[in-house]
């Protein structure tokens, strides 16, 4: 049994495999289930999206994978994460240091992920030391300048000597992308990389990431609330609601033929085209409060197709054709 599992791991074509991950947040008076039985895979050279509204657990998922989740208050209740067939959770194999070259992450707000008391140059140098530890100082300097130029920064010398707060939002995000690039990670996790940026800047950052993906990076896991951004970047997506994956599949299939009523609602919520006074098709209700989830499927109070069974039993993820999965009683 154990042998067969190990053999499967070795043969696995997936870069990242998260299986049955459950995470609770524990406080003095209550326990909140933030992730419940989440399984996500990222293949080699694949762009995978995780889409959901606030409270869906998408950022927690990213934090668990990178290993930056605060434990406590969080507690990992179960599950396993494999990176290139090696276990990184719950027990890192041979104490493998997977961060940096293995997995790297770009956060939503670069002002908080860049260190305010070090200049851009010093922070870049630190990143280069991880990516290329054995090089001469001169070569390292050259790599710093090259990677900043790669992210379309024109005034490289000027940027190197300033501190993060002196840069604009788009420039900061470029610097954090450049820092990740020199480490050449196998898997890049993007946590809402363009939220809060201006439209043209957002488009540029996305273009930059997609162009660099072709040349340098292998796989991307994109965490976003914006289905339209995911639609333009991803090969495959997972839709999350209240800490569970409710639907997954190829991006094109999910967008054109959403199976779960929540995915349908998410798609209909995006204003598209000219309305001329026509309302959007969206049901009432708010994103779930994880402290007071309804019994059964968490989406049932907002679901236009809710049945009796939805209010009593949680639907399991069910496999459909075309590698799709959906957790909904409509497809049982």
């Amino acid at each position, binding site marked *: 049994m154990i042998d067969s599992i190990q053999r499967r791991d070795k043969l696995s074509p997936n870069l990242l495999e998260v299986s049955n991950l459950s995470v609770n947040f524990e406080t003095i008076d209550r326990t909140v289930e933030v992730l419940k039985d989440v399984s996500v895979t990222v293949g080699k050279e694949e762009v995978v999206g995780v889409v959901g*509204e*606030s409270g869906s657990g998408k950022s927690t998922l990213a934090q668990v994978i990178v290993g930056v989740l605060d434990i406590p208050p969080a507690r990992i209740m179960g599950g396993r994460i494999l990176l290139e067939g090696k276990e990184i959770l719950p027990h890192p194999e041979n104490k493998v240091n997977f961060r940096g070259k293995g997995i790297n992450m770009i956060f939503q707000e670069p002002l908080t992920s860049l260190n305010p008391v070090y200049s851009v140059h010093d922070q870049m140098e630190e990143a280069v030391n991880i990516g290329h530890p054995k090089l001469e100082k001169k070569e390292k300097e050259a790599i710093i300048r090259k990677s900043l130029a790669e992210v*379309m920064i*024109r005034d490289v010398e000027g940027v190197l000597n300033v501190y993060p707060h002196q840069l604009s*939002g788009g420039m900061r995000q470029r610097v954090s992308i450049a820092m990740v690039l020199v480490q050449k990670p196998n898997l890049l996790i993007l946590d809402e990389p363009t939220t809060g940026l*201006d*439209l*043209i800047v*957002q*488009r*540029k950052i*996305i*273009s*930059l990431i*997609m*162009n660099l993906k072709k040349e340098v990076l292998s796989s991307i896991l994109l965490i976003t*609330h*914006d*289905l*339209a*951004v995911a*639609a*333009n970047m991803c090969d495959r997506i997972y839709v999350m609601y209240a800490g569970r994956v409710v639907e997954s599949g190829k991006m094109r299939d999910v*967008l054109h033929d959403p199976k779960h009523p929540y995915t349908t*609602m*998410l*798609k*209909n*919520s*995006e*204003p*598209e*085209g*000219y*309305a001329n*006074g*026509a*309302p*959007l098709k*969206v049901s*009432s209700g*708010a*994103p779930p409060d994880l402290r007071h989830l309804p019994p059964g499927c968490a989406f049932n109070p*907002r679901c236009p197709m809710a049945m009796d069974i939805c209010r009593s039993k949680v639907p399991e993820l069910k496999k459909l054709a075309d590698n799709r999965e959906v957790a909904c009683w409509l497809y049982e």
Partner: protein
Amino acid sequence: MNEPILEVENLTVQFKAKTKMFRSTGDREKWKRVLNAISFSLRQGETFGIVGETGSGKTTLARTLVGIYKPKDCKVTLYGKRVDFRKKEGILLLRKTIGIVFQDPVGSLNPRVTVYDIISEGIPVWEKLKEEQKAEKVREAARLVDLPESKLESYPTELSGGEKQRVSLARTIIGGKKILVLDEPTSSLDVSIQAQILNLLIRLKKELSISYIFITHDLNVIKYMCDRVAVLYYGQILEQGNTEEIFEHPRHPYSSDLVAANISFSSTTKFSEVQESGEPSKEGCVYKNSCSKRFASCDNEPPVIDYGKGTVKCWLYSNMRDDRGNKMER
């Protein structure tokens, strides 16, 4: 369409860069011009969109229209009456007619009073209503914005983001305002909640026959909600006109850059071209440092050209011959 109810001409707002410290770091101007000769009009029952990026002056425009900031120079006509910003009557006239919903629902609601008190605060004092009449009006406003009556006794912190924005709306419509300035009303909300608020706005407009000035950076929302649109860049309107016209045939290079950068389900432009943008220019055309079509004339202040369905402020069209401006002499 109907007569314009609000006409704004040459609205200019500038802030003082007070201390020497501020002046020495950046530009050495004593005054910072945030809005520069803005002109637009709003017709009855219309939604007029204002789109722009960070620092374009969107919020300053919203705040000036409700009298929070005083403009340096302007001619504002409201229902045929000239508004004098220097006199108290002028500001009162503005505030009687124009209401505002702020972007941040947390900061715009007093956390120490109940939702009932917040909404009833919007009732004009001169109506001198009795308590029961007030309560009736508040319940009516709450019903209009789909706020459950049970929430009237809660405090703002107990509400979700969508509910807070509904309270802000109720507080504004209870005073019988005819024009609402919506300053990024949905940008802090989840997409499904944003959709609910947009639906609510569409319904309120019909039921109460009000007009909106809708300010946002989200092109998809503008496209969905607005009849006409103005594109704001660094304090200037570079192009304004019919929404469909601007989205299908953007004339100003900045508008076409914006439309091309927009991401929607149907966006077809590939992520390939990464064009570098520059700082807004202080002389000549503001967009010239980022413009792909820049030529010699751009160093001078561009003229505002009327093309029938709207106006555009660009040298490219100064001797426009055909509709798309392709064939012209330089």
